[in-house]
């Protein structure tokens, strides 16, 4: 189904039926808030936190009941995903599901959710998707895409799962008029120009799948940016593609233990630190903050294309918003590229 028109109030009715699991307007958003969010810039939090929670039990071991309660999960919709967030999921799928081992919890939630995306009708001041090979509307990766137009949305159901979700939500659409389709295209062009315009001066223009030539993590040039970093980890937490984690165990009883997976941040000094104190045993390969900051940027722009053929940065600009030191990844990558 492409080029169908769905009035706003019909979508509101459908969402009231609790089909929305995560909304760009917030996890607890009402249908009205969710729909209002569809025409705003991308939200401050990405759906990573729902698909890949920051703190999660991965199981128990020892003497005692070792099975935690199973997660009951009916397929439900993530509503209001942006093109950058779909790009982030494409990347996370590669990194967490395509290797010799799959991340089971991400896989479970990822596979059960219907992805309902929307075109960006407005850009956040830090948005820069067009600088990293993206656009503010999705070409693929969604089950259903909603393009905001006057009074409602142009609906594009790309998959059987998306069509089934529309049908189960009772969302029967009418054919869109030529004017509505033209309006969608005008909005897309305007958003693309807005994002491009606000980034013209950054000097960052990465090509999807290609490594951006950056100095290695031993280069002192990174110090210029690392001087402002306070090692808070906000950039990695807020990033829709950062997936690094750490496992630790906690005691549930004298001989029963629970293993917890928690997000970790490559900016933190403990991230790489190993045991060993003698000078011959180098406890960390990146003792300097500048090397760790470099490692994050290099992962996004150099290592990720080598690892999976995709850039690891989708240009959402959340790390710029979140950074206490006002470090702007557009500026870092733009100025250091060789």
């Amino acid at each position, binding site marked *: 189904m492409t080029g169908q028109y769905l009035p706003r109030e019909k979508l509101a009715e459908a969402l009231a039926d609790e089909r929305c699991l995560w909304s760009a307007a917030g996890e607890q958003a009402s249908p009205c808030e969710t729909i209002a969010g569809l025409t705003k810039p991308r939200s401050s939090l990405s759906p990573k936190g729902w698909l890949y929670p920051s703190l999660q039990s*991965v*199981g128990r071991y020892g003497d005692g009941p070792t099975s935690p309660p199973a997660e009951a999960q009916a397929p439900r919709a993530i509503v209001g995903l942006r093109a950058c967030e779909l790009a982030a999921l494409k990347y996370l799928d590669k990194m967490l599901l395509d290797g010799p081992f799959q991340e089971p919890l991400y896989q479970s939630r990822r596979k059960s959710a219907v992805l309902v995306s929307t075109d960006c009708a407005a850009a956040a001041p830090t948005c820069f998707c067009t600088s990293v090979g993206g656009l503010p509307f999705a070409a693929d990766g969604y089950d259903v895409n909603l393009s905001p137009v006057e009074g409602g949305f142009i609906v594009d159901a790309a998959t059987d799962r998306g069509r089934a979700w529309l049908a189960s939500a009772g969302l029967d659409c009418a054919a869109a008029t030529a004017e509505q389709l033209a309006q969608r295209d005008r909005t897309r062009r305007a958003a693309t120009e807005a994002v491009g315009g606000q980034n013209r001066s950054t000097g960052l223009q990465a090509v999807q799948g290609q490594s951006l030539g950056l100095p290695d*993590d031993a280069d002192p040039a990174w110090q210029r940016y690392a001087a402002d970093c306070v090692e808070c980890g906000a950039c990695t937490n807020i990033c829709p593609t950062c997936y690094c984690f*750490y*496992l*630790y*165990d906690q005691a549930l009883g004298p001989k029963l233990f629970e293993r917890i997976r928690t997000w*970790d941040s490559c900016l933190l000094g403990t991230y790489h630190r190993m045991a060993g104190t003698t000078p*011959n045993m180098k406890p960390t390969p990146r003792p300097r903050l500048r090397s760790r900051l470099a490692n994050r940027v290099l992962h996004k722009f150099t290592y*990720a294309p080598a690892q999976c053929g995709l850039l690891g940065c989708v240009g959402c600009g959340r790390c710029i918003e979140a950074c206490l030191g006002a470090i702007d990844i557009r500026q870092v990558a733009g100025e250091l590229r060789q």
Partner: protein
Amino acid sequence: MITTDSYIPTPAKLVEVIDETPTIKTLVLAPAEPMSFKAGQFIQLTLPGVGEGPFTPSSSPSRPDRIAITILRTGTVTERLHQCRPGDVLGLRGPYGKGYPVDKLAGREVLVVGGGVGLAPLRALILALLDDLGPIKRLSIRYGARGMEELLFRREYDQWASRPKVDMRVTIDSPQSGWNGNTGVVTTLLKNLDMTLPQCVAFLCGPGIMLQFATQALESEGLRPDQIYLSMNRRMSCGMGLCGRCNIGPYYLCKDGPDMNYAMIKDAPNVF
């Protein structure tokens, strides 16, 4: 059915604790289910409630029911592992990593270079090669430790060297009363290598500084980077290529290593 079993260790009973040196012990574990591994692959060893760490078994892959892990006391978890007693139940996950390319060594002269506790994973390689020396042309072992008392597996050297095609040379850092052998760091055993260099493949394991100087020594002897495999150490959590922290450039050591061909990483910073 999605399961998270891959994160959870299998129980393994500690059946023997061997005091190897004043700082190194070998824990011999009997996993609840035999855990097959290739020489050079590593496992994650859990001390319940204390912590988990990656270790490459030092025992032969032919005994998946009895896995030896040789551990240098160097931090919180290894300190506690040294306090374990036979009968304690630990946990194992794995195996992870690629392992040594044992099946690609036919017709090659294999040079094994170890420093300190670095001989532990190399022992699995040595034992795997000793199981069938037929395909390889030669096995040369060069090993160095700080002092006589720190020589790991020293009761086995004569037995290894008595096999055809095998030669072994050992050194300690500085002279010691009662020691008649070589002194000096292990790189002193790598000068004027009497090996057919084009056929040589070298496997190195030891502290970073030893890897650095041994690699330099081998290169100056004429080995190409792609003839050198380095056993790399980085912090690891998952072991499965997911948690992110063990990278050297785009490679995750847990998935692409932990033994890396030097040609792949020689241009990366902070390798040693």
